[in-house]
């Protein structure tokens, strides 16, 4: 579904991604693990269109999407849950969720939007309870759920998740990972970036290790879990 082919990205003169290539087959969960500053977020931003000066090819359904602005990429079926949630803090929970459907928000799509909203609320019942609350006053875990819910409203076929477990209690992390699994089972392809390597490798089919902007290791997630190097560097020995 997604094929990244030698992508480079830099901030000013600092090169952050060096000829990164990877594949995300349809229907799978692929994870990228790596230390702070490895370039994981930059990679996701290159896909979603937020990172404007990346070069190389990103083929989504065989079409090169490098250079297409972020606000049009979401319409192709790629939704990103950005690092640090980035919800619309001054708007209500409900408005945030509605805005997730912005790119196809029309009267004629009203039923679809309602149905998707119902599914988001079913997945995260707490959001329904808080639907009139100002989003900035939600707890960190609730904000993460909102960010995921908002992305799901965008009709994603490919969901990009940037560190959904960051700063969240283990119990909620488990809930969120369960949702990721469910989503995948119902057909959504997922590209997941995580510091929490153990959780990421458990949910993924295939994994890549990113170090200083380069892919240094890749393989089946189950194999990487047993890889001595991965164990030492990313799973705490």
């Amino acid at each position: 579904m997604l094929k990244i082919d030698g992508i480079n990205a830099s901030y000013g003169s600092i090169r952050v991604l060096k000829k990164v290539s990877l594949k995300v087959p349809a229907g799978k969960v692929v994870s990228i693990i790596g230390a702070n500053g490895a370039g994981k977020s930059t990679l996701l931003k290159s896909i979603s269109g937020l990172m404007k000066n990346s070069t190389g090819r990103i083929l989504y359904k065989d079409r090169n999407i490098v250079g297409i602005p972020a606000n049009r990429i979401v319409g192709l079926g790629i939704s990103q849950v950005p690092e640090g949630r980035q919800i619309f803090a001054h708007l209500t929970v409900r408005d945030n969720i509605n805005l997730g459907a912005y790119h196809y928000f029309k009267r004629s799509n009203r039923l679809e939007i309602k149905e998707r909203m119902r599914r988001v609320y079913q997945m995260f019942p707490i959001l329904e309870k808080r639907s009139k609350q100002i989003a900035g006053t939600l707890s960190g875990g609730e904000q993460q759920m909102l960010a995921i819910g908002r992305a799901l409203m965008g009709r994603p076929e490919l969901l990009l998740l940037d560190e959904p477990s960051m700063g969240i209690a283990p119990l909620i992390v488990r809930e969120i990972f369960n949702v990721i699994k469910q989503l995948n089972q119902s057909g959504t392809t997922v590209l997941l970036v995580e510091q929490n390597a153990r959780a990421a490798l458990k949910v993924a089919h295939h994994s890549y290790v990113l170090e200083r902007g380069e892919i240094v290791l890749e393989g089946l997630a189950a194999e990487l879990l047993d890889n001595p190097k991965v164990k030492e560097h990313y799973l705490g020995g």
Partner: protein
Amino acid sequence: MEKITLASQLLQYLITGLTVGSVYAMVAVGFNIIYNVTEIINFAQGEFVMLGGLIMVFMNVAMGLPLILAFLATIILVTLVGILMDRLAIRPIRRPSVLTLIIATIAVSILIKGTASFIWGKDPFDLPAFSGRNPITFLGAVVQPQYFWVIGFLIVTAVALSIFFDRTIIGKAMSACADNPNAASLVGINVKQMILLSFALSAAIGAVAGITVTPISLMEYDRGAMLAVKGFGAAILGGLGSFPGAILGGLIMGSIESFGAGLISSGYKDAFALIVLLVILFFKPSGLLGSIEISRIKRF
């Protein structure tokens, strides 16, 4: 008898104050629209008001267009100026920071003012009042019919805008841009288009203010700066970004000015409102209706 004249005198000040205040409120609302989408303070906001007044005079008096046509044509033209301002002065800035953008708005305001003085000269222009100049006497106070037009238009713009921002997805999308432009583009919002729309909207509202106030106070090329200062004061007083705050702030500023001029001295009328502004900000830095919580997240 003595008592009634004092009361009617005070009523007179109040009505005048609310009228002037309505204009400040419309300017403040214009500030807020752009601020809420971009966090920029648009110092050319007063020039939209001035242009509204002078273009209306041109359309209605010089060209002889009927009131409603002249009104619409003026709003369209001033809106166009707002759009051009965004396209030519704001969007081309390569690495926009809030500060460089604000400086750009100051440059634009100087440019607009210069152009206006070139076209219209330095004399003030008058515009016929919309429904004549026969004053109505109300509990001893003398009220120009035009006052009702000014206040009425404030109410109409306030209601229309609150529906737009609270009920429509485009309105929500505009607020989302201010909250988080990156996240806004991730859900498909074209942030540049929203900024353009904010300039267009606030230019249109500025034009409405200028058109309605010109029959009362005339209009000349350099009126914009003072209107911008008062409108900005009103926006700050009410809490930058809050529409109800802008309206409250504008009406308070106008009233203080009017009472100050009537009861103390008209020479210092511009100072009264600003002094009250400073005092209120000293006690409540986020403005009357601004929330402290939100003002902490904001850059200004």
